[in-house]
């Protein structure tokens, strides 16, 4: 099943190495959105894993295709238009395609876009004179709708390469492909009796000349611009007056999935784990701290990871649906103008919108962006989108300190979150991401297709499992460490796992951090402890306040009663009588700093520790600076 492996060599197994995998390696190369990944999923099913290409954050999918003739290792490369790479993703594809002549490269040619697909094939043939190449002709039905009927047999004669027409969405043609890949002649020398005609050189002009020659021999209609069903649908969905509202409605639906619909399911999952914890504590023998550690330290981590799974499944399902149907490309086109404001293209909109619902699936949604650097940039902006988990804290503080203006304060914080995203985007584009050129949008629009439920389920399963396996480890480990800090007493008179927070190692750390928050007006251990808890999850910040003040957690954060009074009193004291300014500074800090542990874990999975820790450090520094600024200016007003 799927997992996210570390870097591995992109070369074929060494037949002399007994430890090397023996299955032949087949590499899938093709333009983006030509059905390549669908073909991969159809061939390998669940027998796949996700790995990063060496030294990059570019994902490769590798799987095993079990055929009657034996196993084949299949690698799905990032889509590319050219072997002259213009991004890290394209470089990975080019390097892998040219890595080893023993690999069989399957080039997917979209029948409806033969000129640009043939260009990639021509480049490969020119640069890989000896390695076996097989052509998989995809989207023949789409081509037919658009007035083109390429004949695979004729294409095979013209190219001098094995050509197989495949429709992976209906599992058509996979047997033929299997025959071509497993027939000894094909795998051994790749060409059997066929002799491919190649471009004179890898030079672009020679490849273009070769493409022109191939197209001339195929004798396809020169000017096939028949109006298709997709064109008719686009006439509506890309109409300026209809397209924007439809786009807004789709984004709203995805947002609702991540919040209103996922919320109760997440709560139910947590309840199941809470009940499981109570049951375990009921029968577990031995010292109390053992049960406490297992339930409050370890099981709680599994509960958090499990509670994210339905949310992720819903959002991944929605993204896969949008992608598979063809609408995602249209959504990117409609949103493009707005995203240009921060130097990104329209494909960045969906992850950012999801971020306001939950940062974790939003990070995974960056996979819809085609280039590693764009994914990283958006992945750094997502933690600045304010998710609903922060809302309870905003409501608690705002209603406690300025009850007359609670709504204004909360709305202001959401507006501030958008300003932060735009501001950080502009700053990053002019500093760390100056290499991302502003080139304008040229986006190939795939034909609309009916989504396949099996494909959706597979996408959901692969992504969810990848999160559980990799991000889950970080979450469970960190929560166990937090339990240890909360359980260890640092003052006499307490025992392990039976200590008030203030007297625990966690409380001592909160006391140590508190002075750093004095310039922001909330230099108090209750607040630093709440912020530290918020680092794990914003949902538990209100509970942390209640716990540190030894009060009952309010059901409604806007009716905080004694807790609200305590918070007000503390802020009055720490701010020298400027509680409103200190409260506002705390809200700004809350909106700006690291959203939660799960977000960090997902960032680590996608971008590595260096970017994750760097980003978390930058978020905390920015949060502190903004909070200090707000308090220092606010107390003068």
């Amino acid at each position, binding site marked *: 099943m799927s997992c996210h492996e570390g870097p591995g060599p992109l070369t074929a197994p060494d037949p002399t190495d007994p430890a090397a995998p023996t299955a032949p390696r087949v590499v899938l190369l093709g333009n983006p959105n030509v059905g390549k990944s669908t073909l991969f999923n159809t061939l390998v099913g669940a027998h796949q894993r996700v790995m990063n290409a060496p030294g990059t954050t570019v994902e490769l999918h590798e799987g095993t295709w079990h055929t009657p003739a034996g196993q084949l290792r299949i690698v799905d490369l990032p889509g590319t238009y*050219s072997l002259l790479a213009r991004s890290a993703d394209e470089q990975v594809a080019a390097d892998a395609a040219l890595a080893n002549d023993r690999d069989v490269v399957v080039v997917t040619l979209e029948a409806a876009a033969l000129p640009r697909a043939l260009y990639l094939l021509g480049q490969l043939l020119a640069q890989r004179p000896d390695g076996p190449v097989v052509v998989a002709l995809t989207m023949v039905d789409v081509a037919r709708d*658009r007035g083109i009927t390429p004949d695979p047999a004729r294409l095979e004669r013209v190219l001098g390469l094995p050509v197989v027409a495949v429709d992976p969405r209906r599992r058509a043609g996979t047997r033929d492909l299997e025959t071509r890949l497993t027939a000894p002649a094909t795998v051994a020398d790749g060409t059997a009796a066929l002799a491919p005609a190649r471009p004179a050189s890898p030079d672009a002009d020679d490849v273009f000349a070769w493409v022109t020659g191939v197209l001339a021999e195929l004798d396809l209609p020169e*000017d096939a611009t028949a109006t298709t069903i997709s064109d008719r649908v*686009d006439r509506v969905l890309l109409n300026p007056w209809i397209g*924007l509202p439809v786009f807004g409605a789709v984004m709203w639906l995805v947002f609702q999935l991540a919040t209103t619909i996922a919320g109760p399911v997440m709560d139910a999952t947590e309840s199941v784990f809470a009940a499981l914890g109570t049951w375990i504590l009921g029968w577990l023998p031995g010292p109390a701290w053992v049960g406490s550690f297992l339930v409050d330290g370890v099981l709680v981590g599994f509960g958090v990871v499990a509670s994210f799974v339905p949310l992720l499944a819903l959002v991944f399902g929605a993204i896969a649906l949008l992608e598979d149907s063809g609408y995602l490309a249209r959504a990117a*086109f409609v949103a493009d103008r707005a995203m240009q404001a921060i130097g990104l293209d329209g494909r960045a909109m969906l992850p950012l919108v999801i971020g306001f619902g939950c940062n974790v699936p939003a990070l995974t949604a960056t996979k819809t962006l085609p280039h590693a650097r764009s994914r990283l940039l958006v992945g750094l902006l997502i933690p600045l989108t304010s998710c609903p988990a922060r809302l309870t804290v905003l409501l608690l503080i705002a209603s406690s300190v300025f009850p007359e203006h609670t709504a204004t304060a909360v709305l202001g914080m959401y507006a501030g979150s958008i300003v932060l995203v735009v501001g950080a985007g502009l700053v990053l584009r002019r500093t760390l991401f100056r290499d991302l*050129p*502003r*080139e304008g949008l040229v986006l190939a629009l795939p034909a609309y297709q009916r989504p396949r439920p099996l494909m959706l389920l597979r996408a959901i399963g692969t992504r969810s499992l990848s999160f559980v396996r990799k991000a889950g480890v970080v979450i469970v480990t960190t929560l166990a460490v937090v339990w240890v800090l909360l359980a260890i007493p640092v003052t006499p008179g307490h025992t392990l796992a039976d200590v008030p927070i203030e007297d625990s190692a966690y409380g001592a750390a909160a006391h140590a951090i508190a002075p750093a928050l004095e310039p922001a007006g909330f230099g108090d251990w209750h607040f630093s402890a709440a912020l530290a808890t918020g680092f794990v999850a914003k949902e538990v910040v209100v509970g942390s306040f209640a716990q540190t003040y030894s009060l009952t957690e309010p059901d409604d954060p806007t009716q905080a009663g004694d807790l609200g009074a305590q918070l007000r009193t503390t802020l009055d004291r720490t701010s020298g009588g400027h509680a409103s300014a200190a409260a506002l500074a705390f809200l700004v800090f809350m909106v700006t700093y690291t959203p939660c542990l799960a977000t960090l874990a997902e960032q680590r999975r996608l971008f590595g520790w260096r970017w994750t820790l760097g980003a978390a450090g930058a978020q905390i520094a920015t949060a502190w600076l903004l909070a200090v600024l707000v308090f220092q200016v606010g107390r003068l007003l």
Partner: protein
Amino acid sequence: MRAGSPNAYVGDVNLTELPPRTRAVVTGIDLAAAAARGAGSDLALRYRELGLRAGAAIEVTHVAAFGGRVIALGADRFALDRTTCRRIQVEVRAGVPA
């Protein structure tokens, strides 16, 4: 736009000036402004690789919000933003109805 009918668009214009269902032939890609903003010389090659090169027959199939256009390039469809449309010089096929 130069006039009310696409038939009047003879000569070099850029894509932003073409209404829907106009057929044209690409005469060149003007990347001077893009180069001034830091785009590399490989951008011109990428346009060619995608099929947007001199002599390519295109048809504007849709005009989207903010000046973007969808073009048919053979059986392929490309969404182009306004910036890109401005770079693509075309010659309208005289007499081809809108």
